[in-house]
């Protein structure tokens, strides 16, 4: 008789994402495994399998003797319903065993709107949500990823967080667990020991206290000797670090369906709104020779015909020219197409774009983020109108007729003049096309998209207020009224989602009950339009007596104790404050190549300089 899951699979969309068995998947003999890790990605298979961090840590854990790390993803709504109806608990792909049977449950979290997926996945696995309800070493829950840099909204659910790059710390954590399980430690004993590993934060060792006005008054350690500051971990030498050159090749199409090679970490730019830009510092690169070697291994092991060079800003990779000289002949011989995202509009990149023919493929893309030079200076986005128009002119005269422009609305100090500046910039792009296009018959398409600014922890804008969704929509309408050309296609992010993202990004422990309540009311897959339900969230806030505006429109005082203050990502609070004031003065800060601006992240490096 056909088993239950095999009967469900024909009834759901994209069943291949639930069965595992892909090429390069890791299978182990259960008899040799001492510690089973269920590595959960709080979103769908297609998103999770496109995540580099997950692939790295999957490889790191499975390289260890006696450890078997298996993957778990959030089911789509149709599968979730079938699971509930059939009493089928959430399972891991490799062994198809229920997650509840695993020793450790790990999450990597990169997006605030997936917090409900974390809780919902625990629920679907039949594991109690709150750490206090889980006794003993079994089903210990830990989490990492960028969102762990403000872990407080999840503090009641996650037993401990692993901050920063996990290549080394994950090995230390699992080795300790291996020992603890073997020696039969209590959960408390293990947590006390794991807190001694650098970069590990155990939220239950601290109590948060609040002032009458609701702001945080104190973070009180509850045990002797627990650290008051937890510093994220980094890999010192990326050339020597593990890189997944033999990695799973999904049997079904995923979001980034190609081989991916990370060329460097950190960002030299310092855009003041960007959390990744600051929290991934210091700047460390891989050598072109190592990258070339890894590229060949990656492609041969996967059989891919496309290679993506990834980082926060690949044009800033110091060895780009040298790497290209190595890669071009290889790619030509093996018919591999190279893609280099996030290229800047400088000369070298322009030449490279032409060579890669990325223009033809994806069109021109710019992210000026703000419409006027004044506001671009405020946010330290080093991209001038001239650069944009020159690049456009070159491309238009070469026959291209498609431009995408990305902006944010609601940035600090933004006025209606800045909003209208977007329309003006777009107008100039259209004028440039009229003046330079070699082929006007096909017409021009300008896609303009605006996102709603979300202030993030560990950025110079971490104290800023977010404007209300109503005010954002007013600016959207204002902008829309000023697009006169038929060539313009304007789309904007829904404000509701970005408002919630802002609440969760700078949230504290009082959001735990709200998350729990939202999940109880059915929230999950919030990043997906099909499932996001704003009213449900507002009901959850009301039911818990929490005011979302406290975390958004209020803004945080510069002297206020911030929930994420104990978390040290390398960049100092003094530097962030300095940058905030420079923003107000409209002063730009040069990028690291033109001189170190003293963010503090270099102090994490041993023996090498930052961005060397």
């Amino acid at each position, binding site marked *: *008789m*056909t088993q239950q899951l095999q*009967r469900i*699979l*024909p009834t759901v969309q*994209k*069943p*291949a994402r*639930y*069965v*595992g*068995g*892909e*090429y390069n998947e890791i299978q182990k003999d259960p008899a040799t495994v001492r510690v089973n890790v269920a590595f959960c990605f709080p979103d769908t298979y297609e998103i999770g399998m496109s995540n580099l961090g997950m692939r790295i840590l999957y490889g790191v854990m499975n390289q260890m003797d006696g450890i078997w790390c298996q993957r778990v993803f959030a089911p789509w709504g149709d599968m979730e319903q079938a699971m509930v109806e059939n009493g089928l608990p959430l399972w891991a792909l490799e062994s198809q065993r229920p997650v509840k049977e695993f020793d450790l449950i790990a999450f990597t979290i990169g997006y605030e709107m997936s917090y409900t997926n974390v809780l919902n996945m625990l629920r679907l696995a039949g594991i109690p949500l709150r750490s206090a309800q889980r006794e003993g070493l079994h089903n210990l829950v830990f989490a990492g990823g960028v969102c762990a840099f403000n872990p407080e909204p999840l503090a009641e659910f996650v037993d401990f967080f692993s901050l920063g790059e996990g290549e080394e710390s994950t090995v230390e954590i699992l080795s300790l667990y291996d020992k603890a399980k073997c020696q039969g430690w209590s959960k408390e004993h293990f947590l006390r020991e794991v807190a001694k590993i650098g970069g590990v934060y155990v939220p239950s060792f601290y109590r948060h206290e609040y002032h009458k006005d609701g702001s945080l008054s104190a973070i009180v350690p509850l045990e002797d000797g627990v650290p008051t500051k937890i510093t994220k971990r980094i890999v010192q030498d990326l050339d020597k670090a593990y890189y997944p050159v033999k990695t799973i*090749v999904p*049997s*079904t*199409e995923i979001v980034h*369906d190609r081989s991916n090679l990370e060329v460097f970490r950190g960002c030299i730019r310092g855009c003041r709104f960007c959390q990744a830009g600051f929290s991934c510092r210091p700047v460390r690169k891989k050598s072109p020779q190592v990258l070339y070697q890894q590229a060949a291994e990656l492609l*041969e*092991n*996967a*059989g*891919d*015909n496309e290679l993506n060079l990834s980082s926060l800003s690949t044009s800033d990779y110091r060895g780009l020219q040298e790497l290209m000289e190595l890669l071009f002949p290889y790619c030509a011989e*093996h*018919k591999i*197409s190279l893609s280099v995202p996030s290229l800047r509009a400088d000369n070298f990149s322009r030449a490279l774009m032409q060579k890669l023919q990325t223009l*033809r*493929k994806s069109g021109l893309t710019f992210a000026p983020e703000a419409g006027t030079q004044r506001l671009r200076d405020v946010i330290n986005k080093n991209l001038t109108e001239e650069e944009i128009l020159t690049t456009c002119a070159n491309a238009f005269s070469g026959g291209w007729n498609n431009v995408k422009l990305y902006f944010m609305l609601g940035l600090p100090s933004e006025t209606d003049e800045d909003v209208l500046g977007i329309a003006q910039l777009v107008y100039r792009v259209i004028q440039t096309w009229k003046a330079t296009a070699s082929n006007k018959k096909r017409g021009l398409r300008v896609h303009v998209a605006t996102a709603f600014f979300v202030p993030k922890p560990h950025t110079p804008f971490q104290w800023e207020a977010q404007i209300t969704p109503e005010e954002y929509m007013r600016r959207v309408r204002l902008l829309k009224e000023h697009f006169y050309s038929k060539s313009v296609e304007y789309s904007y992010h829904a404000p509701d989602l970005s408002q919630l993202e802002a609440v969760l990004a700078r949230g504290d422990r009082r959001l735990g009950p709200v998350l729990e309540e939202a999940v109880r009311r059915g929230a999950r897959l919030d990043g997906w339009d099909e499932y996001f339900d704003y009213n449900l969230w507002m009901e959850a806030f009301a039911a818990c007596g929490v005011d979302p505006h406290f975390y958004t429109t209020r803004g945080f005082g510069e002297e206020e104790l911030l929930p994420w203050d104990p978390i040290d990502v390398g960049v100092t609070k003094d530097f962030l404050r300095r940058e905030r004031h420079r923003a107000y003065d409209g002063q730009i800060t040069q990028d690291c190549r033109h001189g170190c601006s003293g963010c503090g992240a270099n102090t994490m490096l041993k023996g090498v300089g930052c961005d060397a």
Partner: protein
Amino acid sequence: MPRVLFSKTGNGVWISHLDLMRLFQRAFQRAGLPLKHSQGFRPRPVVSIALPLSVGVQSVCELLDFELDGPPVAMEEIQARLNQALVAGVTVQKVYEAGRKLKELALLGCTVALEYDAGVPAGCREAVEALFHQARLLVEKKGKNGPQEQDILPMLHSLDVVQTDGCTLALKAVVSAQNPALNPMLLAAAVERYLPQLRPDFAHCRREELFDAQGQQFR
């Protein structure tokens, strides 16, 4: 053009037609067997699969045509290397030169299994057999312009109904493979529609063999 005879079983059945093409393109590459590429701006390795298989359907008789770019490789060698580079559930049974023209492929032998968890009901076999012996049998078929009623009997060339175990009734059918093709799962749909009291708890399907118009095995 050389041809691959392969099977799709186990969890391989959940791989869609398009994903299967991608899987093979990568498998050839991993096996060190570079494929000829299409012409055009973005050349793609060319493989073509004879009859797209629906997700969830097993098969032991799938055909894929390909052309290698580079020095010739022995057929047995290609088979061995591909099987190393494929995933569980997709297995190459044979690689051979110059198969027959695909347009001569006319019929498909398949088994539709109807599972009854509480045992096959008494009289079920007879009732199902009688159902397919009528003058016509209208079944709803999903089309581009919404569902359409379609008489499936002209495309059903033969049918044997056998009880294979206490809980399974197997419809062993030979159906039209192309122009037009009959999706064998419509046989199960007919049972569900006209014999609701004999609705199975689960139905699944397996392609068994390919034939030409004369009923000879097609390769």
